[in-house]
């Protein structure tokens, strides 16, 4: 299949996926060189002997995980841009994926970008945590992105445009963005009520008529909860904002 699409199959990927025990313990290079070609800079670049000596220059590289220190030299050297560093020890929920990047402009550290998979499809939002600019203009730069851990073996590219645009307004009354909602969900606030109380989304005059459904969708996307099982906040009187004086009678004239 990869011959026709340029996209490795599930089996191809399984073959090069580092074992779970290794991924849990250390950052490691993942070599996605699926076909034999006459090429060995990865082997010569590695100062730690983590890539097995080539018997034939056409050999596919074989990594000795225990020796890999994730220095990234092979990532920079690989002419096929086929080596990536993944680090699943980055945090409890996130992994980093370091990719070779030869486009301009480079993203900046702290930027949010869209992480793409091997077919260029958007996977998730990613935060750029490190940009290693090549020492010379013609050297390969690398970009390290933080992504949810389950995407460490899926994300292999990026698009500078933030499709999962966090600056999209979700709650118009209070000006709360999608990004803020996602941040809260990622911190463990996974009910509409908690999100409302911490961020005020849904506390405004419309009482969540616009944002509630959108927040429910985000919770579903992030946690897999069913919409029908979600704990619903109560709708409160009054149904539209009215002047306090109205209830005294006669005062609310406009």
């Amino acid at each position: 299949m990869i011959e026709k699409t340029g996209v490795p199959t599930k089996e191809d990927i399984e073959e090069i996926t580092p074992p779970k025990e290794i991924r849990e313990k250390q950052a490691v290079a993942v070599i996605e060189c699926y076909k034999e070609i006459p090429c060995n800079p990865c082997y010569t670049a590695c100062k730690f002997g983590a890539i097995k000596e080539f018997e034939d220059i056409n050999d596919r590289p074989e990594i000795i995980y225990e020796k890999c220190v994730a220095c990234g030299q092979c990532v920079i050297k690989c002419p096929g841009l086929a080596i990536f560093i993944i680090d699943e020890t980055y945090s409890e929920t996130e992994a980093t994926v370091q990719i070779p990047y030869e486009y301009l402009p480079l993203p900046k550290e702290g930027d949010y970008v869209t992480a793409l998979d091997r077919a260029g499809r958007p996977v998730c939002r990613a935060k750029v945590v490190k940009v290693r600019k090549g020492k010379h203009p013609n050297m390969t730069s690398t970009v390290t992105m933080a992504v949810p851990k389950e995407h460490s073996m899926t994300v292999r590219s990026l698009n500078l445009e933030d499709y999962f645009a966090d600056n999209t307004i979700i709650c118009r009354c209070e000006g709360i963005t999608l990004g803020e909602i996602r941040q809260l969900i990622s911190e463990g606030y996974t009910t509409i009520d908690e999100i409302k109380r911490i961020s005020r989304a849904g506390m405004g005059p419309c009482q969540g008529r616009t944002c509630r459904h959108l927040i429910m969708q985000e919770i579903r996307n992030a946690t897999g909860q069913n919409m029908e099982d979600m704990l619903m906040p109560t709708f409160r009187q009054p149904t539209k904002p009215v002047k306090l004086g109205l209830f005294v009678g006669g005062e609310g004239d406009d």
Partner: protein
Amino acid sequence: MITTEIAIIGGGPAGLSAAISAASLGAKVAILERDGRLGGQLIKQTHKFFGSEKQYASTRGFDIAKILEEEMEKYKDKIDIYTNATVLGLYEDGVLTIEHNKKYMKMKPEKIIVATGASEKFLSFPNNDLPGIYGAGAVQTLMNEYGVKPGNNVLMVGAGNIGLIVSYQLMQAGVRVKAIIDAAPQIGGYLVHASKVRRAGVPILVSHTIKRAHGKESVEGATIWQLDERWQPIEGTEKYLDVDVICISVGLSPLTEFLWQAGCEMKYIPELGGHVAIRDENLETSVNGIFIAGDVAGVEEASSAMVEGRLAGICAANSLGYGDDRFEELRRDYTEQLKSLRSGPVGAKIVSGLSKVTVKKQFA
């Protein structure tokens, strides 16, 4: 405190039908409508309705509103109409607080029919807060009530019935519809509506969604892109559309606040547009004396809303002891009408949704 036998919240197709049928059995009714005039969304509907004669098929929506108002004339001593009357709260003791012509009033009815309709769903995409992005309802209000064109070039997001009909109305008003897009892989609305706009040259793009709106002060353009079979956007399929209006018509959700306030048992039913109340065959909710009719009970067509209104009306009236002689016959008729309106493939989704929230009547 005003007292009445039946308060009907909402003066749209369901509410008006409920008022007529309840009053026809002899009950004293009050209609509470937040707008300045009755008719609800019917007023904006310039197209001819489907259904059968009993639901005014082939008649245009705004004409149906007139017919209903005329019918109400017959029972004018039984029906009190409050327009510009927003119900602010439905409280634990059954009292409604109301803002009526900017004044405060309270009403204590014996029964309540909630016929509040539905509100439009929104969509999140970058720049979705730019002026020039409207819900389909707002576009209809601008054009059909105030005679104002919302702009010159429109991107319609949503190919359900409302998206298709509003696109058609926009073209009738001389507005260019650049495209109708829908994230779903097929057109959601009636295909006759779709053909009507398609043959006027409007492209309908399924499996497409809006990527972002462009513009500084207001909408100047939109980028759309294609979705794959997993509803994921496909890189490189972006198209830029030169539009000054983006109309969002991605569905309706029932306006259920009063039912939550009253403590009705609610359930999330995607087929019906969101959370709706559990009800029995007489459209009475789990809270005794609170009935529902129309989109608030589950989003569907205005024709079914009107029949539901009739049904809720006679059931509320009968629970007060009115119309014992005619009740069963009318109830059978309305139930049959609803069944036939929902009988086709289009109704299958509604029927499936309703089966999850309709319980057998437990007579007290």
